[in-house]
């Protein structure tokens, strides 16, 4: 079982929404579409579901061409960012609706709805209407409806984006478990790199209608193919600066930062270095750290992490440290970069050296 997109392209009028895309999602995998808004995640999902037709190209499912097939005939489920339930149906009827259509007998329906409701902690709410539920429960209902019918393809379009922080954390932990032991392909669209890392599986990074890179989530994270992929897969945004290599010595930012690194087999010359915010910290981390000075622009706390924006040589930098470190705005500060974690890109923005 697999889902294949072959040379899929989507244009609306003169605008290209999806550039030529080839993707293969294998059986029993969770696949993450990672990209900012308008990257084309939703369009791509609609094409996969059959709600939208590609302008050119084919979609193959289980070795069959399903490009023109109506969505009703494909065995797919979908969950949206908005909590979409049928407002006039009770929770039970909502979950049961895809089963009712297939004409399964009532006893079987009651049994299966009961099981899935148990799994999603909805058992006590089956007689309520969706608008009597909290946001989290509404989304659980939508998830239950997607899971109840044993579809081969489950599409989740930013399912956690409209939930508040605590509920999001809770449901995000449950999600991968829900798909265990299921014979299906899961596609999960999100704007949050942390979602992708937590869920694992495979990730496709998207930018402006193009699939930049597809592979195992951890590999895409550690070895972003190019600068764009690295940018998509970093939140807060990755710091990028030009760097000069002469021998083992690297110089950054008009000679203000300098370090030596052995074992980097690159020709001398100009490169770009990508430094993820959590590799710039207020404390030394790792064995090889280098100092960077800057003027604090913004210093904010989020949970148990401190986000510090600072300026050095006309570039704005973002750093993310564990623990709470309050710094005064305008103050000159010293931070440390872990040089072992640097990503190097050549002048055409392709990765040349990874961690």
């Amino acid at each position, binding site marked *: 079982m697999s889902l294949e997109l072959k040379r899929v392209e989507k244009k609306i009028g003169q605008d290209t929404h999806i550039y030529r895309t080839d993707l293969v999602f294998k059986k029993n995998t969770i696949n993450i579409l990672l990209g900012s808004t308008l990257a084309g995640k939703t369009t791509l999902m609609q094409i996969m579901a059959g*709600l939208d037709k590609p302008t050119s190209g084919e979609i193959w499912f289980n070795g069959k061409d399903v490009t023109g097939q*109506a969505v*009703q005939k494909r065995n797919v489920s*979908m969950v*949206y960012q908005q909590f979409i339930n049928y*407002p006039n149906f009770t929770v039970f009827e909502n979950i049961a*609706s895809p089963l009712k*259509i*297939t004409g399964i007998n009532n006893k079987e329906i009651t049994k299966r709805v009961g099981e899935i409701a148990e799994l999603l902690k909805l058992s006590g709410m089956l007689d309520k209407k969706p608008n009597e539920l909290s946001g989290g429960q509404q989304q659980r209902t939508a998830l239950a409806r997607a899971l109840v*019918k044993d579809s081969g393809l489950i599409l989740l379009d930013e399912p956690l984006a409209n939930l508040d922080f605590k509920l999001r954390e809770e449901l995000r932990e449950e999600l991968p478990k829900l798909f265990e032991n299921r014979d299906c392909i899961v596609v999960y669209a999100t704007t949050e790199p942390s979602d992708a890392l937590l869920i694992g599986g495979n990730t496709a990074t998207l930018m402006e209608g193009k699939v930049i890179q597809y592979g195992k989530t951890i590999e895409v994270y550690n070895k972003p193919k190019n600068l764009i992929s690295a940018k998509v897969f970093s939140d807060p945004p990755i710091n990028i600066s030009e760097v000069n290599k002469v021998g083992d010595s690297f110089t950054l930012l008009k000679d203000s930062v300098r370090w030596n690194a052995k074992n980097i087999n690159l020709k001398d010359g100009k490169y770009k270095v990508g430094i993820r915010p959590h590799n710039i910290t207020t404390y030394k981390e790792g064995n090889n750290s280098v100092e960077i000075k800057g003027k604090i622009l913004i210093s904010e706390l989020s949970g148990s992490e401190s986000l510090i924006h600072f300026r050095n040589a006309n570039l704005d930098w973002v750093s993310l440290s564990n623990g709470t470190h309050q710094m005064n705005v305008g103050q000159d500060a010293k931070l440390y970069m872990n040089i072992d974690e640097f990503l190097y890109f050549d002048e055409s923005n392709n990765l040349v050296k990874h961690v």
Partner: protein
Amino acid sequence: MLPIYWLLNMSFKTTTEIINTYSLWPQKFTFENYITIFTDKTWYTGYLNSIYYVLMNTVLSVAAALPAAYAFSRYKFLGDKHLFFWLLTNRMAPPAVFALPFFQFYSSINLFDTHIAVALSHCLFNIPLAVWILEGFISAVPKELDETAYVDGYSFWRFFIKIFIPTIVAGIGITMFFCFMFSWVELLLAKTLTAVAAKPIAATMTRTVSTSGYELGLLAAAGSLTIIPGAIVIYFVRNYIAKGFALGRV
């Protein structure tokens, strides 16, 4: 409230009292006027005719406007915005303008003096209005609801009837109310297009002049009764109307 009070006040008086004395409440309280209306066939058929064509028009308008409003809300097609606006401009012409063409047209196809003739002619201004109101309600429903239903295996019509219509029932309620009201109060077309068989109550009222002049008490009672259907409908849709105002379409 004063004109309504005065109307009610008059309806419980005799015509003689209305003409000859000034009184804030009926001196000789009487149900005579109402009894006449409910027992005299020429009177109560006027109400029945009116209610008949108004209901017909309401059902026709909503039935035609629902698919149209759905299309305007969900699909993009060439000139959709212009068409949508043009629909509304139909309401800007006074219905009187269309009295003559309707009269001539219905006469020539033998629909003159039938309920359906009046009901259809009222569609002229009620369908655009219904499309306008319903489009607002439909656009407030995310299109993801439609998609979810298709993904679940619903065909379009099954989804439309089982899920979509119940979802926008408030909008349909309001639309019916407005269609009902505009059709109920419209006189000119209703009078022009009918003679005997489908004569509306308003026409009956203006045609009751006896030898002793207008039967004022009777007229007042008939007038009071015309308020009742509207009041009943408002009672049922009062909660929906607030929602409609919130959407800015009422």
